[in-house]
């Protein structure tokens, strides 16, 4: 390829790989928040309090239908207006975790709805408490069918981390921008970012698929 500078590529590679680690940490931390907050959102939509159910339902819709990059700005800039200053990392993790928790809550909702009605009735017949019904009967059965969706969103959150660069989180994209503007060369950094993303997300997506197939086999679904 013309104009491609291999020496420059090798020179910037360590910096990009270091930033990749930050990207993975950001994706991981955001995902942990999303997994738990998503569960809270899903369960909140099943309470008998209609106002809470409808409120959470609407909030999930709202988060899902507005751009993540705008939400990142919102979280980062609105705090200081009211005297709460968040670091880029904190704001970024809150925004991305919140965004994906809305998606994950839908995955869980699907999983919970796939549990046969008889299981609920059996739990009621054994007069299990609501807590026991959920944590011992329903969620263990709702989890396996949710795993594929959860895996897809793990890959999804990884691919959305470049948006954190807009508030200055030093992940991969931010580092590539910095390298580009320091050296006036964008070809190598941006192309390498693309290649690094492919190198991680393609195997990850393949792993999610085979894991899904494995779970389905285990459950005797296919």
């Amino acid at each position: 390829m013309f104009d491609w500078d291999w020496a420059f590529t090798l020179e910037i590679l360590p910096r990009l790989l270091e930033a990749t680690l930050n990207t993975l940490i950001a994706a991981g931390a955001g995902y942990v928040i999303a997994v738990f907050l998503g569960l809270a959102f899903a369960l909140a939509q099943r309470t008998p309090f209609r106002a809470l159910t409808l409120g959470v339902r609407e909030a999930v819709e709202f988060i899902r239908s507005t751009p993540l990059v705008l939400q990142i700005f919102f979280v980062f800039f609105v705090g200081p207006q009211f005297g709460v200053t968040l670091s880029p990392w904190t704001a970024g993790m809150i925004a991305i975790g919140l965004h994906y928790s809305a998606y994950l809550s839908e995955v869980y909702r699907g999983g919970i709805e796939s549990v046969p009605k008889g299981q609920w009735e059996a739990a009621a017949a054994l007069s299990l408490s609501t807590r026991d019904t959920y944590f011992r009967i329903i969620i263990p059965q709702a989890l396996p069918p949710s795993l594929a969706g959860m895996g897809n969103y793990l890959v999804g959150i990884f691919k959305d981390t470049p948006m954190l660069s807009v508030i200055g989180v030093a992940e991969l994209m931010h580092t590539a921008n910095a390298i580009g503007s320091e050296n006036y060369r964008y070809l190598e950094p941006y192309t390498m970012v693309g290649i690094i993303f492919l190198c991680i997300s393609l195997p990850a997506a393949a792993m999610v698929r085979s894991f899904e197939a494995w779970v389905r086999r285990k459950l005797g679904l296919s």
Partner: protein
Amino acid sequence: MSYTEFLAEHGPRLLDGTLVTAAQFFLATALAIAVALVMGLMKLSDNWLLKGVSVVYIEIFRGTSLLVQLYWIFFVLPLFGVTLEKFTAGFVAVGMNLGAYGAELVRGGILAVPKGQWEAAYSLSMSPARRMWRIILPQALLNMLPAWGNLLIELLKGTALVALISVADLMFEARQVNSATYLSAQTFGTALIIYYVFSRFLITPFMRWLELVMRRKMGRA
């Protein structure tokens, strides 16, 4: 400053941005549909070259981030002699990215059409092109319309990224207003609500309506 005063002063700018966002949305949607159709059909082709090209395209665009693709198209492509104006680069990146996701929907939609439909068209000795266009695609379209509703919302959200290459869309104007006023809650809050209204009260009802119309047309209401 009250919220009404804020809207009176900065509302027009946000509205201008909304129009640019709408333009980006429609252009990117048109491109995404075209890309999805071509790549989806190519992936179903028996020709290994066509199939290979579509697989590579889909994996590259789905395997990397939209933001990476946008920067690449805007900053790197000029080095190869293809210079796109920022407005064009914006919707091209969004359209090509979402088109890759759409291609999988097209493929899935076509595969879900019952085999008997292919056989029936064959026994009426329709040409392959005519069979695809008249028999298979309309049914495939009905199969995949609900998923396209979600995809178009993702596409709308994707257009917010074009602000990062300085296309003056809603996101961009919101940032401008924010840095001029520091009224972040009002500015970004208003922008969020506009995006929400766009997807929840325009895109979703339109797709529902389209599905209903298609269903009626095909006698499946």
